[in-house]
């Protein structure tokens, strides 16, 4: 008969325990989980990248809803257990659900420590614990106001970096003289403080918070020395304590945490505790590796293996802030019986310190250059006698035995039992073994089978190197499809790093992101050029040599090497003078074909390249500017005649189309953007298969997007209904800017929308007024540099070399 297993809490430890249990004893238990948070199980370690905007919540989910269904697990979301009845063997939730158990696992985690200063309960004081905290911080960050983070430890610094990248003015208050003093010695703490300050985050050490004050909400933080710091957001990140209240009320033995034996069992033999709420051998833990070890032990116990036991482990600490490399392990206090080896490279910002006792490593601090962390960890764990290599030890593994300084060789030299993934305790042999035995070829496969690099991700590089070593070329790093063969990075990663590292030229991107070719290729260069134009509109100098020929000469190349030219006709409206000018140009330059396009424009085909500037000069005389029919940018806004003429028209669709086009012309986008405005739901402008479309109705303007009528056919999605033309314009512009900032080069809006999710786009554009305004403002700013008519520039002589041969030779000889 199946036993009933009830789990209180749905964090990372119980999630992992269930995975083990399903493997070891499938079908033995009927499992019910109560999660006080209203969601599934996600990777809490990755909250910092969510806060900084580098990852989305969806990317950090460990078990989606489908997982629970597949394994027949009942998950109560948003149910907090309020009582355990050990006599009746039941638990009861705050929503009144009572569930019997045969075995109970308590995994209530920890609660953030709140310093009980006056004002700690004011609105605007947050902790940093779960997704709700992160969402609250992101919301607060939109005001672009001042934030104070109390606590200069791991969590506090990650929160500060995240808020900083969200645009807030951040001050970190730390009560000790140096940052992260529990993991770093003062020298590394100093380097860290400098790096943090270089990002524009203020750091005040020896700061003793006395009060948080304000009128009904946070307005300032006051220190004991009289300093007053204005702030609208205060994040307390001073530490955590085990959440053992429930267990205590049920009469289970509790000290700092719930007291359990090495088998994770409490003093009630049917009740286990794992995770941050558990205390084993007098220790409580907060890093994920020992918590996962608890999960493994508890699963083995529940599966009937009573010998499974938890053994204390030291876990390296790493800071997850892009651009700061930091590694700390073990004990690094000075002492009579200890020696230390220190390497400093001030120019490179590198500091390394090894603490030795009896010729064995007992502690390591690495700052700036951390690749040898795994090796030092291995030496420490195995208590290796290092006296033989003492002189060169600090230079790292690749320096030993005269081996070349090649990161690949360093990984190859690691022994099979060297730990690669600290979070999940996965060693090299397990990874290479799984790759060979299961024929794994992608990083995702390896994550799925071994868990290596599946939590904080900082060992991803090592795992990738192991894959290359094990299967060579068969390794397919394209779980993320690389941009092209010049790099192993995908578009999103490149876009993120351009922003994070402040890269502002193509050579800088290639240098910093370690491009494999000297100057890229025809795939990556136009993409990088676009990303840089989009991200740094005022600073980046457009690289024409990295643009496809059409965008370089502002016309469309045809199969015979001639070009076609499409002047802009705003909203598809023209007049006699314009048509006459076009007719004259066609006659003068003997243009072989004139055609009306699908976007309500006139296309002149078969123009010789040499004639282009003269053609543009004549068209310019008549008032025409470039129609950008060649651009990855705004092409056309197609309109119907709307309320001006049509007996069904509800709004001035022609006017709105012209207004949108005049506002948005010249902007570059990841792929072409075609729009349309229809004056009534009869939709004569065919707005419902466009990248962005508007259907006018009596009550306003229905905005559509993500349609397609090319390689794919797809009707649009409705973004929402707005009342006025001004609002319609603001929403469309904001949507386009969001796409500009997130789209991958050559990815049309409908593909981008599918990737990001329609709901998320609606949330940001329709529901979040501040975000919409910010997108709108960034678009307007970038237009200042984009709205220059390229035709008139070239008609007046710009880029002359593009349109003329550099020489004519051999004609005399040929005539002879």
């Amino acid at each position, binding site marked *: 008969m199946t036993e009933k297993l009830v789990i209180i809490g749905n964090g990372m430890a119980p999630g992992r325990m269930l995975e083990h249990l399903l493997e070891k004893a499938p079908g033995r238990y009927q499992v019910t989980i109560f999660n006080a948070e209203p969601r599934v199980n996600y990777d809490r370690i990755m909250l910092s990248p969510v806060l900084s905007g580098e990852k989305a919540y969806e990317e950090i989910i460990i078990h989606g809803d489908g997982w629970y269904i597949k394994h027949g697990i009942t998950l109560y979301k948003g149910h907090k257990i309020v009582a355990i009845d050990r006599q009746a063997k039941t638990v009861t939730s705050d929503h009144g659900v009572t569930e019997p158990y045969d075995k109970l696992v308590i995994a209530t985690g920890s609660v953030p420590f709140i310093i009980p200063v006056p004002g700690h309960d004011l609105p605007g004081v947050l902790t940093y614990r779960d997704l709700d905290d992160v969402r609250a911080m992101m919301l607060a960050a939109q005001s672009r106001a001042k934030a104070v983070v109390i606590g200069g430890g791991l969590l506090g610094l990650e929160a500060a970096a995240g808020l900083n990248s969200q645009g807030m003015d951040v001050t970190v208050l730390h009560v000790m003289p140096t940052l992260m003093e529990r993991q770093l010695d003062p020298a590394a703490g100093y380097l860290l403080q400098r790096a943090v300050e270089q990002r524009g985050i203020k750091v005040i050490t020896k700061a003793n918070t006395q009060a948080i004050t304000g009128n009904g909400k946070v307005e300032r933080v006051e220190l004991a020395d009289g300093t007053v710091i204005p702030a609208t957001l205060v994040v307390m990140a001073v530490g955590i304590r085990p959440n053992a209240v429930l267990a205590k009320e049920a009469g289970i033995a509790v000290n700092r945490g719930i007291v359990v034996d090495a088998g994770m069992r409490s003093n009630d033999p049917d009740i286990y505790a794992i995770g941050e709420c558990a205390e084993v051998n007098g220790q409580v833990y907060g890093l994920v590796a020992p918590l996962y070890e608890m999960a493994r032990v508890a699963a083995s116990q529940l599966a009937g293996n009573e010998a499974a036991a938890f053994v204390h482990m030291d876990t390296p600490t790493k800071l997850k802030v892009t651009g700061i490399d930091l590694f700390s392990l073990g004990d690094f206090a000075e002492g009579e019986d200890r020696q230390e080896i220190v390497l400093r490279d001030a120019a490179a910002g590198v500091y390394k310190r090894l603490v030795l006792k009896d010729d064995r490593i007992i502690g390591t601090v690495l700052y700036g250059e951390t690749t040898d962390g795994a090796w030092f960890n291995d030496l420490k764990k195995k208590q290796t006698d290092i006296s033989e290599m003492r002189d060169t030890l600090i230079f790292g593994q690749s320096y030993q035995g005269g081996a070349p300084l090649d990161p690949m060789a360093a990984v190859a030299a690691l022994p099979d039992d060297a730990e690669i993934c600290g979070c999940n305790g996965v060693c090299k042999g397990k990874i290479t073994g799984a790759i060979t035995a299961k024929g794994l070829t992608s990083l995702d496969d390896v994550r799925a089978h071994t868990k290596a690099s599946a939590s904080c991700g900082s060992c991803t590089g090592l795992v990738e190197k192991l894959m290359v070593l094990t299967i060579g070329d068969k390794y397919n790093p394209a779980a993320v499809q690389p941009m092209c063969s010049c790099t192993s990075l995908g578009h999103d990663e490149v876009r993120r790093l351009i922003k994070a590292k402040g890269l502002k030229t193509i050579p800088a991107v290639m240098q910093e992101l370690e491009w494999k070719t000297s*100057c890229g290729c*025809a795939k990556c260069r136009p993409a990088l050029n676009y990303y840089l134009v989009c991200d740094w509109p005022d600073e980046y100098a457009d690289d024409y040599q990295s643009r496809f*020929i059409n965008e*370089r000469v502002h016309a469309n190349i045809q199969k015979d090497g001639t070009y076609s030219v499409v002047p802009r006709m705003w909203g598809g409206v023209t007049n006699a003078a314009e048509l006459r000018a076009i007719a004259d140009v066609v006659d003068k330059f003997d243009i072989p074909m004139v055609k009306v396009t699908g976007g309500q424009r006139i296309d002149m085909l078969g123009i010789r390249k040499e004639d282009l500037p003269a053609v543009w000069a004549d068209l310019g005389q008549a008032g025409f500017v470039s129609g950008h029919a060649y651009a990855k940018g705004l092409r056309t806004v197609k309109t119907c005649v709307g309320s001006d003429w049509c007996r069904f028209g509800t709004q001035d669709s022609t006017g709105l189309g012209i207004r949108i086009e005049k506002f948005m012309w010249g902007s570059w986008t990841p792929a072409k953007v075609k729009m349309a405005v229809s004056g009534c739901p009869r939709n004569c402008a065919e707005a419902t298969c466009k990248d962005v479309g508007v259907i006018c109705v009596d009550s306003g303007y229905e905005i559509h997007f993500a349609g397609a009528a090319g390689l794919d056919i797809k009707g649009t999605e409705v973004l929402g209904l707005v009342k006025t033309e001004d609002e319609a314009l603001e929403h469309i512009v904001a949507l386009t800017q969001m796409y500009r900032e997130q789209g991958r080069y050559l990815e049309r809006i409908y593909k981008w929308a599918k990737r990001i999710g329609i709901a998320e786009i609606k949330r940001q554009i329709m529901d979040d007024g501040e975000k919409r305004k910010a997108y709108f403002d960034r678009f307007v700013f970038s237009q200042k540099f984009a709205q220059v008519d390229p035709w008139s520039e070239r008609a007046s002589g710009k880029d002359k070399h593009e349109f003329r041969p550099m*020489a*004519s*030779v*051999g*004609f005399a000889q040929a005539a002879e």
Partner: protein
Amino acid sequence: MNWVSIGSLSDIPRRGARCVATPEGKIAVFRTADDQVFAIDDHCPHKGGPLSQGIVHGTAVTCPLHNWVISLETGKALGADEGAVRTIAVRIDGERLFIALEALASRAA
């Protein structure tokens, strides 16, 4: 060898190309990022695309019509594609550029 002057290095943008008109058609003269200069027929072996209009990367150019990648050094298509275009000798004398005209005559003959 009959070297004919076609202009100077600075006439061509880095990672770019210019054309030289001849009675037998255009010659594309390329300048790489590191100032090497190459000349090949401006006529992709695939469908005759104007190679001078392509994106120049390393010592190769990608044809603007269908993305064939042609080596500027050998004139041969790189990757899976097969085909070649004629290369023409280039001499750089200080800033001045010359191409070998006999090669042109031999083609005309």
